[in-house]
């Protein structure tokens, strides 16, 4: 949780481009000038998808993958009815976009090296961060298989050092991204780093443990089921340390107080089923 205020808007954005990114992922670019202008890495948008059966009432949240000029890009995976409707959108279709939402990643403190750790579509907000961070650093991408490693060449093109791991060994090191990170840390123990991570809960939890072990700051972007996306419905809560009362906890709203939290704030519990 990192205090930050941006004013949000809702705009009807036109789909400019849909691209496939391997078999499972897609990129959608929207003309959304007011959001593109304000967006910062780690923030997200909440989309009302026109082709979705209106019996489904909720918007769908997606990290900002890029914001250039009057355009924003989303990197998404088709997993259910909403993302299926999204995949059917064509250039010229209109989508209601609410955003930019949430607090982004805090800026890199001077004298530190950034490490980015992404799992699957978790690399979406990290690329945006890399683009906006002048200090180059190291990117760790992980996934089940090679098709889950997203944007490695883009990170490289920005001048970042990219390391990859897949669980099935189809690309990069075989194993978990956090194992690879651990190895890298052993070899670079003297470098002062700040971490930024996004991916499945299991990965984030492992990152958080490593961060404590290595005494570094790790900013994690969480993914929780959302209702409003705006802080009113209290659906997306996560337990965090109560800053005002040591040893006790309180709920934070991922949509409004997050989605980025410092790893020590989060109380990982059975609630993440």
């Amino acid at each position, binding site marked *: 949780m990192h205090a930050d205020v941006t004013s949000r808007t809702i705009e009807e954005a036109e789909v400019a481009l849909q691209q496939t990114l391997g078999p499972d992922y897609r990129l959608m670019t929207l003309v959304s000038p007011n959001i593109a202008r304000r967006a910062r890495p780690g923030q997200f948008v909440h989309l009302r998808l026109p082709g979705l059966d209106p019996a489904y*009432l*909720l918007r769908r949240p997606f990290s900002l993958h890029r914001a250039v000029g009057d355009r924003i890009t989303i990197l998404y995976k088709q997993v259910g009815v909403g993302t299926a409707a999204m995949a059917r959108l064509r250039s010229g279709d209109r989508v209601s976009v609410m955003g930019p939402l949430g607090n982004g990643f805090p800026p890199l403190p001077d004298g530190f090296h950034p490490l980015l750790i992404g799992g699957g579509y978790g690399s979406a907000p990290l690329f945006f961060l890399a683009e906006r961070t002048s200090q180059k650093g190291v990117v760790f991408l992980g996934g089940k298989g090679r098709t889950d490693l997203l944007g490695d060449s883009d990170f490289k093109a920005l001048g970042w050092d990219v390391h990859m791991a897949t669980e099935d060994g189809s690309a990069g090191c075989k194993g978990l991204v956090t194992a690879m990170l651990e190895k890298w840390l052993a070899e670079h123990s003297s470098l002062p780093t700040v971490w930024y991570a996004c991916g499945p809960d299991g990965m984030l939890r492992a990152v958080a443990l490593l961060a404590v072990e290595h005494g570094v700051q790790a900013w994690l972007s969480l993914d929780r089921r959302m209702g409003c996306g705006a802080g009113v419905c209290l659906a997306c809560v996560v337990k965090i340390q109560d800053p005002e009362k040591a040893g006790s906890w309180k*709920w934070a709203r991922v949509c409004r107080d997050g989605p980025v939290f410092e790893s020590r704030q989060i109380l990982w519990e059975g*609630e993440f089923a």
Partner: protein
Amino acid sequence: MSVPRLETAIGRIRMKNPVMTASGTFGYGTEYADLVDFRQLGAMVVKGISLEPWAGNPPPRLAEVRGGLLNAIGLQNPGVEGFTRDYLPALRELGIPVIVNIWGRTLEEYEAVATRLEAAEGIAGLELNVSCPNIKEGGIAFGTDPAMLERVVRAVRKQTSRTLIVKLAPNVTRIDPLARIAEEAGADALSLINTYPAMAIDIETRRPVLSNVTGGLSGPAIHPIAVKLVYEAVRAVQIPVIGIGGIVEARDAIEFLIAGARAVAVGTVNFTDPTAALAVVAGIRDYLVRHNLSDVSELVGSVRGP
């Protein structure tokens, strides 16, 4: 034709139009401030407040079902002290009537919240959420048992000089006796309906989609149930009734008004579109113009025979 009059009143609350936002669906007035021009709303009802801060249920707390949402937030709130200290100051600045939804697990808790709020400034009215189980009486909801409903309304009435709205539970066989009891016990208005008890199971994991197993159904799915209950409550009492449940667009609100509701509250649709309540206001205005009505009061209760 001139612009139709939209003003309405609920008890001593004067509203510039009959559209409010429903408790739990619009936060505490600041969350949507940059997206919605609050001054155009008739009133705002804030999330349910209890005596002590309350953590609510563990997630998952919300799920989508066809035509509706299922929620079991569990009434998470900062407690009456936290509310008056941290939220009320900003609410006072909104420039529209603020109604505080309150709840308790015992009669005494209801009374205590009302008493504390009586001391606070900038509150137009209280909305009594009687859908919560009374822990002293074996977990029966205050709003479904006539005797308990009477006691809680009477008790809160004694503690508050403000407009008192009683928000009835929908899961009863007949609403009219409960509506009358609330009126006789001192309510200035009724609001209905709260969410309807419901449940969904994820067939892949075979687990309930909510941590709380069951939850409350809101959204378009419950609208025809709400219209009937509002229609019947209106016929049972003299005090104004606020229609809530499944409003998506102006026509749903107009249906409540024709059925006899003096005002309406917009809930779940705020999540889809936070400006929905403003669109409802505009749609009611258009309807009045189109039907040559100069005052929204001409619409209220204008339902004809079948």
